[in-house]
C-alpha cells in the first residue's frame, strides 16, 4: 500500500468511525431531554429510568466521539500537513467556535451525568438540553469546515499564494448550509431509527415492554419526522452540487456524457474503463429536473471535465445509490408508521411493523456513511476543491501504511467493545430498572 493511499484510508477510517459516534452523541441527548422532561412533568418513574439508561449510552458515545474527534484534529496535521499549513488560518474559524461548543458540551455533560439528586431538578434538566444544543452546534460547525473544502471561499488564490484571508467569509461558504442541514437530518434519522429499532427488538422479546415502548415512541418521533424531511434537504443539496461541483454530480450519476435533457440512473453497473453504465433503470429528464428544476436543462457530463480531475466514478455512484435507496426505504417505513398513527392503531399489535424497525437499525448509518463517501470521494482529486490536490497535501513521512494498520485495529476493537457494552446495558435493563414488567398484551388490551 503506498503512503498516499494509506493516508487516505486512515483518514477515511477515522472519519467513518467518528461520524457514527459523534452523531449518536449529538442526537441522543435530545431524546434524553424529552424523556427527562416527561419524568419531571408526569412523575412516571419509567421516564426517569429511560433517561438514566439513555444517559449511560450518551456517556459511552460522547467519550468515544470525543477521543476520536481529538484524534482527527491531530490527524489533519499528521496526514495532511501541507493542507493545514495553508487551510488552517482560512477555515479555522468554525473549528475555534466548535472548541467552545464542545467545551460547553463537556461541562454540561459533567453536570448532567453526576448531577442526579445534587442539582435543582430543572437546572439538571437544562444541563441535559445544553448537552444536546451545544453538540448540535459543534456538528454544524465541523460540517461548515468540511463544506469549505467543497466550496472554498474567503481568500484569493494568486500564483500559489493564499491572500486576503477572511475567516468569516470562509465559514459562511456556499456549501455550509445545505451540507449542515443534510447532515443534521441524517444524524437524527439514523440515530432515531437505530434507537427505535433496538427498543422495538426488546418489545418483540417482551422484556419490560412498557419501558421499551415509551422509549421507542420518543425515538421514533424524531426519526420519522426527520426521514420525511430529508428528501427536501437532499434536493437542496443536489441543486447546490450541480452548480458548484459539476464533476461530483456527474460522478454521482455516472454521467459520462453531457446530455440535454439528462436521465436519472437508478442502480446500474459502472465500467470505469469503457465509461459506460449497464443495467441501470433510466428515468428520462429526471436528472435535469433534480439539478436545475427543469426537465429540459443540460447537465454537464464528465466529458466536459479534464480527465485528471475526474473523481472515482464507480465508488461515488454506488455510494449515492445506496444513500438514496436507503433514504427512500426509511421514508416508506415512516409513512407506514404515520398511517398507523392516523388510524389510531397500536403498533404493538402489528409485530411486522416492529420487525421493520428492527431491520432499520443499521440502515440509517449505512446511508450516512454512503452520503459521506459521496461528499468526500466525489470531491477528489481535490482536497480544496479547484485549489489544492489531495496528493500534494500528504505528509512526507513514509510508512503511513503501518499507522493505518495500527489504527484500524484500534478502531475495530473499540467498535467491538462499544457494541459489547451496549449489549450488556440493554440486557441489564430488567435488573437495573426494577419496574414491574407490564406485558405487551396487557398494555395493548
Amino acid at each position, binding site marked *: 500500500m503506498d503512503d498516499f493511499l494509506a493516508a487516505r484510508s486512515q483518514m477515511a477510517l477515522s472519519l467513518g468511525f467518528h461520524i457514527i459516534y459523534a452523531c449518536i452523541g449529538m442526537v441522543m441527548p435530545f431524546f434524553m431531554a424529552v424523556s427527562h422532561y416527561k419524568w419531571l412533568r408526569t412523575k412516571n418513574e419509567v421516564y426517569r429510568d429511560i433517561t438514566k439508561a439513555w444517559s*449511560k449510552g450518551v*456517556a*459511552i458515545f*460522547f*467519550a*468515544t466521539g*470525543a*477521543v*476520536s*474527534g*481529538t*484524534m482527527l*484534529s*491531530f490527524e*489533519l*496535521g*499528521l496526514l495532511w*500537513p501541507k493542507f*493545514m*499549513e*495553508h487551510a*488552517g*488560518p*482560512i477555515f*479555522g*474559524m468554525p*473549528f*475555534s*467556535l466548535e*472548541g*467552545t461548543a*464542545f*467545551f*460547553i458540551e*463537556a*461541562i454540561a455533560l*459533567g*453536570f448532567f*451525568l*453526576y*448531577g442526579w439528586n445534587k*442539582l435543582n431538578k430543572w437546572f439538571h434538566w437544562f444541563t441535559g438540553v445544553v448537552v444536546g444544543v451545544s453538540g448540535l452546534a459543534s456538528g454544524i460547525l465541523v460540517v461548515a469546515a468540511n463544506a469549505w473544502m467543497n466550496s472554498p471561499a474567503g481568500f484569493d488564490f494568486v500564483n500559489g499564494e493564499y491572500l486576503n*484571508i*477572511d*475567516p*468569516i467569509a470562509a465559514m459562511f461558504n456556499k456549501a455550509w448550509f445545505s451540507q449542515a442541514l443534510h447532515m443534521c437530518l441524517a444524524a437524527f434519522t439514523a440515530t432515531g431509527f437505530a434507537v427505535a429499532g433496538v427498543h422495538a427488538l426488546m418489545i418483540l422479546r417482551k422484556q419490560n415492554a412498557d419501558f421499551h415502548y415509551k422509549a421507542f415512541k420518543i425515538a421514533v418521533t424524531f426519526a420519522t419526522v426527520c426521514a420525511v424531511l430529508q428528501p427536501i434537504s437532499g434536493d437542496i443539496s443536489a441543486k447546490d452540487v450541480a452548480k458548484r461541483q459539476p464533476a461530483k454530480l456527474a460522478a454521482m450519476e455516472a454521467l459520462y456524457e453531457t446530455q440535454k435533457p439528462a436521465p436519472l440512473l437508478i442502480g446500474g453497473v459502472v465500467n470505469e474503463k469503457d465509461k459506460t453504465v449497464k443495467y441501470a433503470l433510466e428515468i428520462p429528464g429526471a436528472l435535469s429536473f433534480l439539478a436545475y428544476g427543469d426537465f429540459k436543462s443540460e447537465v454537464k457530463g464528465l466529458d466536459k471535465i479534464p480527465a485528471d480531475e475526474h473523481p472515482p466514478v464507480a465508488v461515488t455512484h454506488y455510494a449515492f445509490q445506496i444513500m438514496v435507496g436507503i433514504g427512500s426505504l426509511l421514508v416508506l417505513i415512516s409513512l407506514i408508521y404515520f398511517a398507523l398513527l392516523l388510524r389510531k392503531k397500536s403498533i404493538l399489535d402489528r409485530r411486522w411493523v416492529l420487525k421493520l424497525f428492527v431491520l432499520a437499525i443499521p440502515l440509517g448509518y449505512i446511508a450516512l456513511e454512503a452520503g459521506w463517501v459521496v461528499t468526500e470521494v466525489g470531491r477528489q482529486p481535490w482536497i480544496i476543491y479547484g485549489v489544492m490536490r489531495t496528493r500534494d497535501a500528504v*505528509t*512526507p*513521512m513514509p*510508512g503511513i501504511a503501518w*499507522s493505518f494498520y*495500527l489504527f484500524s485495529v*484500534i478502531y475495530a476493537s*473499540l467498535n467491538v*467493545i462499544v457494541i459489547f*457494552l451496549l449489549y*450488556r*446495558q440493554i*440486557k441489564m435493563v430488567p435488573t*437495573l430498572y426494577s419496574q414491574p414488567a407490564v406485558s405487551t398484551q396487557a398494555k395493548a388490551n
Partner: protein
Amino acid sequence: MDFVIIIFLCLAILLYFLLGGADFGAGIIELFTSQKNRSKTRKTMNQAIGPVWEANHMWLIITIVILFVAFPKIYTTMSVYLHIPLAIMLIGIIARGTAFVFRHYDAVKDQMQEVYNKIFIYSSFITPLFLGIIAGSVLSGKIDTQATDFVSAYVYSWLNWFSIAVGLFTVTLCGFLAAIYLIGESKADEDKKRFIKKAEFMNVGAVIFGAMVFTAAYFEDVPLMTWVFQNDVALLAVILASLSLVLLWYLLLKGKTKVLRILAGFQVTMILVAISYAHFPNFIRLKNGDTISLYETMAPIKTVESLGWALVLGSFLILPFLGYLFYKFQQKEE
C-alpha cells in the same frame, strides 16, 4: 489581538498541564498503588475526576485549535517531525478516555473491569510520558528539517535523552498534582495518609527526573541553564518554586492539607514559566540552529482577530459554567 491569542495559548497549555495533568496523574497513582489499595484509590478518584475529566481534556483541543489556526507552521512542523510520538500519545488518549468511561458505565461488573483498569492505568502513564517527550523535543533542537533518511528525520527528532527526561519529569509532576488533589478529596484519614505518601513519592521522583532533565540538557546542548539562570524572571520563578516546595513539605509532614493544592499548582506553573520564559517567543528549536517563533509564523491579521474574539467570547460562556462545575462537585457529601 496577537497578545490575546498568545495568552490563551499559554493558558490552555498551563491548564491542560494542571487539570489534565492531575487527571492523568490519578491513573499514574493507581498504577503505583499496591493491588490491595487500588479499589479504594479508584473510588476516591472516580468521585473526584468523574464529573470534570471530559472538561479537563478540552484544554488540549483548545491548544491544538489555536496552534493550527493561528500558528500553522508550528502545528505542521510538529505534525511532520513528531508524527510518531504524537500518534502514540493519541493512542494513549483514546485508550484512556474510553477505558475510564467503559469501566464506569459497564452494566455488569466482572473480570472485564480488570481489562479496563489495566488499559486505563498504563495509558495514563504513556500519554503524559509522550506529551512530555513532545514538549521536550520542541525545545531539544533535534528536529532536523533537512534530514533525508527516515531515522534522523522522524525518530531522532524525539528519541533523545533530553526529551525522554522531560517525559519522565512530566509523568512524576502529573502524579504529584493528582496525589495532592486527591488528598483534598479523600474522606477517610487512612486514604488521606496514603495520598500524602504518594505525593511525597512523586515529589521525590520529580526532583530526581528534574535533575535528569538538566543533566540531559547539558549533554544534548540544550541551553536550559542559560534560560533558567540568566534570566531574571525565570530565576525568580525557580526561587519561588523552591520556597513553596519547602513550605509544601512542611505542611505535608504536619498533615495540614488546606493550601496544598494552591501550592502544588503554583509550583508547576513556576516550573513551566522558568523553562519557557527565556525561550519565548521562540517555540520550536531546529537542528540547524534556526527557531520557529510565535510571532514570525502567525496567521494573517484577520484570522488572528477573529480567533481572538472567538476565544474571548468563548471564555465568557465557558469559564463561569466550568467554575460552577468544579465548585459544585467539590462539596463533600455528608
